[in-house]
């Protein structure tokens, strides 16, 4: 069930605009002259066959790669070259194609780690862990507990994430990204390797995050059913080139897309 807020998106302002971005690794062109925008409050899918440049595009958005050409505007301000750390401070959080959690830490600690940027007290205060540092920790913990409740992972709170099944690890990773209270959440194949039930759970969580926290979401996903159900707009890449951009129904009937991706098995 989509939140009605989805319908206002057509008129919404652009949270992030990518203009004529190109990225190459030596002679390999990963992204060629791609332009698109992500509007505040929407769920934006990026799809395309393997090697289409989807993950590279996410990496450009969160500052991991520097494009050779093009302009990126985030929250209305043109963005210069930046590092992922700065992107995170600016309000961009992400999850990874391969789960990238701290495997030896508990689910709770992993999500607490996501609050690191929200902590005001310095290293020595935290070391002392009294007075304001303790009060801050309690406040942060409450926020984290809300996320744990939101994602229904109470039962694994104190379990090392390395021991958890894959679907739950993915959920913890989403929790860690949420803990940053991001303006823009990037999800790289949030449902890869999941079974039907886990996919349904994850879909519901993504919709809930969007509706409840109002977070703007950009996701890469291979499961077409999921993409078409979840997203407000879909961007299609093929060999680093944008071949279509629009609402799911448009994209689904676009001949170029069918040829490049949907119609052909790979």
């Amino acid at each position, binding site marked *: 069930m989509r939140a009605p807020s989805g319908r206002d998106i057509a008129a919404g302002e652009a949270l992030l605009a990518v203009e004529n971005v190109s990225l190459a690794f030596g002679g390999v062109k990963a992204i060629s002259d791609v332009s698109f925008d992500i509007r505040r409050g929407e769920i934006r899918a990026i799809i395309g066959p393997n090697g289409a440049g989807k993950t590279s595009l996410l990496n450009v958005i969160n500052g991991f790669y520097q494009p050779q050409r093009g302009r990126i505007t985030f929250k209305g301000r043109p963005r210069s070259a930046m590092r992922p750390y700065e992107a995170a401070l600016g309000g961009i959080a992400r999850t990874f194609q391969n789960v990238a959690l701290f495997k030896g830490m508990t689910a709770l600690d992993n999500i607490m780690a996501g609050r690191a940027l929200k902590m005001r007290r310095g290293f020595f205060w935290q070391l002392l862990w009294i007075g304001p540092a303790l009060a801050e920790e309690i406040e942060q913990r409450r926020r984290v507990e809300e996320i744990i409740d939101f994602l229904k992972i109470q039962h694994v709170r104190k379990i090392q994430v390395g021991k958890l099944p894959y679907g739950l690890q993915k959920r913890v990773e989403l929790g860690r990204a949420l803990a940053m209270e991001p303006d823009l959440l990037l999800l790289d194949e949030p449902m890869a390797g999941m079974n039907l039930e886990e996919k349904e759970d994850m879909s519901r969580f993504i919709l809930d995050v969007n*509706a409840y926290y109002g977070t703007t979401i950009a996701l890469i996903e291979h499961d077409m059913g999921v993409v078409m159900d979840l997203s407000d707009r879909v961007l299609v890449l093929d060999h680093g080139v944008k071949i279509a951009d629009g609402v799911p129904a448009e994209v689904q009937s676009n001949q170029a897309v069918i040829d490049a991706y949907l119609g052909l098995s790979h």
Partner: protein
Amino acid sequence: MRDNNLPANGGKGLAARGTGRGEGRIAVATEAVCADTFPKLLMRNARLFAGRPAYRHKDLGIWQVWTWAQVLDEVRAFSVGLQELGLARNDKVAIIGSNRPRLYWAMCAAQALGGVPVPIYADSVAEEMAYILDHAEVTIAVVEDQEQVDKLLSIVERLPRLVLIVYDEPRGLRDYDHQRLKWIDDVQKVGRDRLSAGAGRLQRWEAAVAAGRGEDLAVMLYTSGTTGRPKGVMLTFDNLIVSAINGNRFDSLGPDEEVVAYLPLAWVGDHVFSYAQPFTAGFCVNCPESPETVSEDRREIGTTYAFAPPRIYENLITLTMVRMEDAGRFKRHMFHYFLAVARRWGEKILNREKVPLHARLLYWFGERLMYGPLKNRLGVSRIRLAYTAGEAIGPEIFRFWRALGVNLKQLYGQTEASVYITAQPDGEIYADTVGRPNIGVDIKIDDNGEVLFKSPGVFAGYYKDPEKTAETKTPDGWVHTGDAGLIDTKSGHLKIIDRAKDVGRLNDGSLLAPKYIENKLKFYPNIREAVVYGDKRDFVCAMLNIDLTAVGNWAERNNIVYGSYQELAGHPQVYDMLAEHVEEVNRSLADEGMAGAQIRRFLVLHKELDADDGEITRTQKVRRAFVAQRYAPLIAALYGGAREADISTEVTFEDGRKGMLSARVKIRDVQTMPVPTMEKAA
């Protein structure tokens, strides 16, 4: 009153335990006479146990506590709010969700106004709910969260009577159309506003509570039933309150007990153990954080009184055994050594029998080194009393718990009896009986072996079904249980053999009690479910379900590769292992003089029997006839002598969609012990 001196329970409500146990109970006994409905009991408890914890709920990782006085305040506000929104006397209120304080309070809030709560299994699919909601003529539904709201909204068109849905957890529901949808907080706010506006609103509510009578309808519980549509069992306040008080007396339950509520709200067991008994005895109900955290929450609370179907006890043992297989050699050795000590002496010590000193010493060491830590892990360190009911429990499982020093007892009950029919008194514990009649209960055995009972808890009738009521309840108040049983001559206890209609005979005349054999099979950790056939046939056959935890673990240790449940279930080595189990069962059947009912052939099903497919009931009982019909090709192959058979069945996924599942299932012959000719003659 002494109880008032107790701390008012901040975050650490666990510390609040009274010492005035005896006093409390006397007061409870005398006051219960005039408090003949749950809302009246709530008002009594708010006076008597004002500052003592009544409900706890773990939220955001912290146990939140409500005292009896606070619960009264919450229920009153909720109740007045519901009244303002149109709840009238005799209106039916559906309660759907997991064990959360506010859903229990919803029951009381409805009862205060003469409304009748109708708890419904939360994992029912929308279709099942639609039937009950329609049949019970429900006007208001109080549900847990968005999941349940979505289910109801999908069928609301067909339910013209349903005018209001109230939800507990607001997440995801903000943007829904709130015309017929309300958050509990908002309902309570309406109630609080009215109450604080004065104008005698409080007195009017209290008058409504006072107008309730013990003979009024208190609750309707739909039994899942092994056949046909669910029936609405109507129970009055007298049924529940008298039964609960008698139950409290039978086991000396007082206001100091701690229980964890985790069983389905719609089950009579939960209704009595997590609602009627706490209200009458004044003890505290602890609601888990989520259904997945029950065992952890139980550990934190340290329950003193527990109630569970055998499956729960079985699962805990399976889990323990599986984990021990992965433990280091030293630990494993110690575990098995002390387990043997416990098996030999533990039960005798628990029963206060005479035991030699060295055994006591060994057991003492065992308690320090193994039983204690294990019980702590399982969350039963403080347990005083645990009941198993709902189905027969495997004797080995039963003895395992008692050997560890857990006072596990058997109870026999039914929805139609407000639970209690028989139970085992302390010190009279036998693995194969269900005990003596509870206080106020009479039982008798019919000519055909069926057990009948008569008690204060006997239900008022099935809702809108006088025919079925007359079939079950005789005019002079005896109720047919549908179970075949006998009175054990040695102990004087009741023994249940099987469902009366399930006891059958093979073509050669040998007696067949299918459940008895199934339970023997299910004792093996590798076998999750077993269905046995043989009535009016030449020999006995069985269909088995593997237990994925146990067999999966075994496969891992033996380097057996499998890609799916289906593949593992059909693996030849799994078949070999299960064949051994079946042969052992045959041997024990032959030893017990039931050689004629030995299993000749069996197969392992390619899918788990599932309540969503209607193969087992929501309370995990196998629907044998339905399974036989559904897997008819397999039954035919079992009796036809084929080596394998193809089967294709429709399955229902968790989201309600359906799909087809096909498989080729192999069939195994097993060795049987020779049937003594003498036995045949008998």
